């Protein structure tokens, strides 16, 4: 295992210490239970927006705490959903008196832990709404299974909901924005290499030099199929076609296109993917009106990419363009 870490059990705490030192002007870090909050919160009369999940996806979620995005993020152990006490304390810490939105990625662990936290918070008199993102088209949607995973749409939903909350919209309205993102967004990912969970010490799976995994999630779980390595253009097509045919998007739709790096893939390759993804979207008559290209939702040092499309309307465009000031995403201020 080749990583810039000390002891595996210290990875998350030391990372949080680094974030606290690097971004003291934007965020504060609380330990035991661990959570990151806006330095200037809680804000009276503003809906609190919270997310969380296992660590190893940086900058998601801690890097998205700040003005115009999240009020708090709860980091679990690497690839392990955080515990209810973290979310409960974070919920209390960001409560501005008008309710708190929990943005939850659809994983059994995340759902159960967030549910427990929401129950506990409600018992303490805080209004909580939870919206579950489940945008990964590599997984078949079904009420008989755990359903689709929550991936790239989560980042976009956090930005949109953060902006909506900043406008002092009501909890229901902010949650509606999240539901729109959930309904209008789809993603799919692939990996060129596995990642290594620090305490596991070796790659989660072995992937021969000439093979890749298609339909990968963000926790090193193997994908849906393993197949021979292909060109960037072919890979991009294998990700884009299932996305576009899923909702399905219609010609003329305006979309935000998010080409995400999984941690070990550099920007130069992501732009090559973006170029082809844009071409495919255009061929289907989709208008790419906004974009995001970079490693915003990683899977430790995994090499690979995921693509997310989000159909935009006028309100979502305004929310996307609104100022945001976080360690991981910043513009307009």
């Amino acid at each position: 295992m080749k990583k810039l870490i000390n002891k595996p059990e210290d990875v998350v705490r030391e990372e949080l210490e680094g974030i606290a030192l690097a971004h003291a002007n934007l965020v504060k870090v609380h330990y035991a239970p661990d959570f990151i909050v806006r330095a200037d919160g809680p804000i009276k009369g503003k809906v609190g927006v919270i997310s969380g999940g296992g660590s190893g996806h940086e900058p998601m979620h801690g890097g998205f705490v700040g003005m115009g995005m999240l009020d708090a993020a709860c980091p679990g152990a690497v690839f392990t959903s955080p515990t209810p006490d973290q979310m409960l304390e974070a919920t209390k810490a960001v409560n501005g008196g008008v309710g708190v939105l929990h943005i939850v990625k659809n994983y059994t662990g995340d759902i159960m832990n967030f549910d427990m936290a929401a129950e506990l918070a409600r018992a303490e008199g805080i209004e909580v709404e939870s919206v579950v993102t489940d945008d990964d088209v590599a997984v078949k949607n079904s009420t008989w299974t755990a359903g689709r995973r929550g991936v790239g749409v989560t980042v976009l939903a956090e930005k949109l909901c953060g902006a909506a909350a900043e406008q002092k919209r009501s909890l229901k309205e902010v949650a509606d924005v999240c539901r729109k993102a959930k309904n209008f967004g789809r993603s799919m990912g692939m990996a060129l290499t596995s990642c290594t969970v620090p305490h596991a010490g070796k790659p989660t799976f072995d992937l021969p030099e000439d093979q890749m995994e298609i339909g990968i999630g963000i926790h090193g779980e193997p994908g849906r199929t393993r197949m021979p390595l292909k060109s960037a253009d072919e890979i991009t097509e294998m990700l884009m076609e299932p996305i576009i045919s899923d909702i399905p998007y219609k010609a003329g739709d305006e979309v935000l296109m998010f080409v995400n790096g999984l941690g070990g893939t550099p920007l130069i390759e992501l732009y090559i993917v973006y170029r082809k993804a844009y071409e495919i979207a255009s061929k289907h008559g989709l208008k790419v009106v906004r974009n995001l290209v970079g490693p915003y939702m990683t899977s430790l040092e995994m090499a690979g990419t995921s693509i997310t499309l989000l159909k935009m309307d006028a309100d979502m465009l305004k929310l996307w363009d609104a100022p945001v000031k976080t360690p991981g995403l910043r513009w307009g201020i």
Partner: protein
Amino acid sequence: MPIPRDDVVAWIKAVAEMISENSSYLTQLDSDIGDADHGANMDRGFKAVIKKLPEVEDKDIGTIFKSVGMTLISTVGGAGGPLYGTWFLQAGMKTAGKMELTPADWSEALEAALNGIVMRGKAEPGDKTMVDALTPAVAALKQAVQANQPLNTALELSAEAAKKGMEATIPLVARKGRASYLGERSAGHQDPGATSSYLMLRVAADTWK
């Protein structure tokens, strides 16, 4: 012969030790069809349980179980945390105030634990989860206890039923939890949660024999 409170505490300690010894094994199983953290998660949780134990080990069994449940919930995370937390919380409710467990008490506690897990996780037998190990174990225990079998026989029967249930997860295609994302590719691998559940019952049979 009922199980005295101190033997229950001894079982919890033995489970913690067993989890620690099997941490890499459980994580390896979770690498194959999950995210390579089940062993580390459970180990972190039971290490916290052991730390917390001195504060409650002179209390009644219900209090001890509830403390274990709360500790697991606040330290394990993932799917395992709420599920095993629920296990002990539910078992704790059934055993509130008790300073020893009759075989029937233990059978009822385990059944309550299973029901709690099913309520939380909505998994059915055959979904390739810990429910596949616990369901036959609860049935075997109940039957043995109703048939007035001696405790150690009953515990052996439940552990062996859990083992069979665990092994039976191998060919299954997962429908719940993280392994479900793999679809057909999840077949051919043993479920990590079913494995940790079996191991806990195995340790019970060994500790209380």
